[in-house]
């Protein structure tokens, strides 16, 4: 993260903040979508995250921590938004793009299986697989011990494998 951009953003420079945001925007939006399953809600929580982050960036001491910091804000927004879903069923099959050349049915099954996981397990997998974050980084974002992140990730993967017919890897 560019310290100069961060400094300017902390001084209220919206363009500098937007540049910082641009480097993580796709991962923020994708994470929100795969956690919430609704395009509009994903847009809302990302916009709320951006607003809060811009308002609070003066409190960010380490420019290098920007990415983890803004993801932490996002994950709290997502958690709050998901509370309003109680009693509702949300599937991740909205008209979003599927991977080219992939088996669409398989991708739908995987997304549904992911959507049925407890929120924390899904957060860990989305941040790990989509964001490429390490256990300690995810632990920081979710307020969890890295060892717990690792053990829950493995359990979540086991659950997914069982849900998808118990197929072993390397099929």
């Amino acid at each position: 993260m560019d310290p100069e951009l961060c400094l300017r953003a902390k001084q209220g420079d919206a363009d500098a903040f937007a540049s910082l945001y641009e480097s993580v925007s796709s991962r923020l939006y994708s994470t929100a979508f795969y956690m919430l399953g609704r395009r509009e809600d994903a847009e809302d929580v990302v916009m709320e995250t951006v607003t809060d982050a811009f308002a609070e960036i003066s409190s960010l001491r380490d420019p290098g921590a920007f990415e983890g910091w803004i993801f932490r804000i996002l994950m709290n927004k997502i958690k709050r938004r998901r509370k309003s879903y109680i009693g509702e069923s949300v599937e991740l099959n909205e008209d979003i793009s599927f991977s080219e050349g992939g088996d669409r049915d398989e991708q739908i099954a995987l997304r549904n299986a992911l959507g049925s996981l407890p929120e924390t397990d899904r957060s860990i997998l989305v941040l790990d697989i989509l964001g490429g974050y390490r256990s300690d980084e995810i632990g920081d974002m979710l307020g969890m011990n890295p060892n717990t992140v690792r053990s829950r990730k493995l359990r979540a993967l086991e659950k997914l494998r069982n849900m998808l017919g118990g197929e072993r890897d390397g099929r």
Partner: protein
Amino acid sequence: MADNRDNGYEGIEERLRSSMPLLEVPESLSASSVAQRLKAGSTRKRTPIYVYVRAAVAACLVFAIGFGAVMISRGSFSAKGAESDGYAVESSSEPSYDVKENSADDDQLSVTEGTGSDITYNAQSGILNRPDSGNEAPAELALRAGETYSAVLDVKFGEAEITTDSEEDGEAVCTAELTEEDGAAARIVITGGRSGTQEITVTENGETAYVFLVRVTE
């Protein structure tokens, strides 16, 4: 980057990866749109309703802490304020305890040692999740060998089970058991054994309800 360890799940991870492509950001969230909105101040925050709700909850907790002080004088502690939010915490230890919202996560309440202290993970301290929040972050407990932590959980005794992560040979880091409370609720009792860390998961009908990360020091 993600942990690159041979965990035996590479196949399922790869399938997940291919089913979750990075999405293109919609125009409304593009950097230029965001910059314009921020400059125009159209995203200025209003005080959301939950701020007022949290203030009300905090006021309730102040009352609860006062009540808790009475309990402490009897050598035990019961977070009655927390119970009204769906759960209760008890400890057999003597020091005074404080119950407050966890500053890092407003879905959790922290039980901390010492009134007004910001210490979260201290002896006989822990975080229990608000059961109706769907939040399954682990409750982290620090125990000394021989010390016991106990809490009433929002799970049914007959439908709850305890599982632990792999243990090393020899004496367990801690022992955990569920006992039945009035109303068929379950109480977990965790007792420190030897130094180390162990994870304890409480499931209800096979679904994870609580995860405790227990650190034991001798």
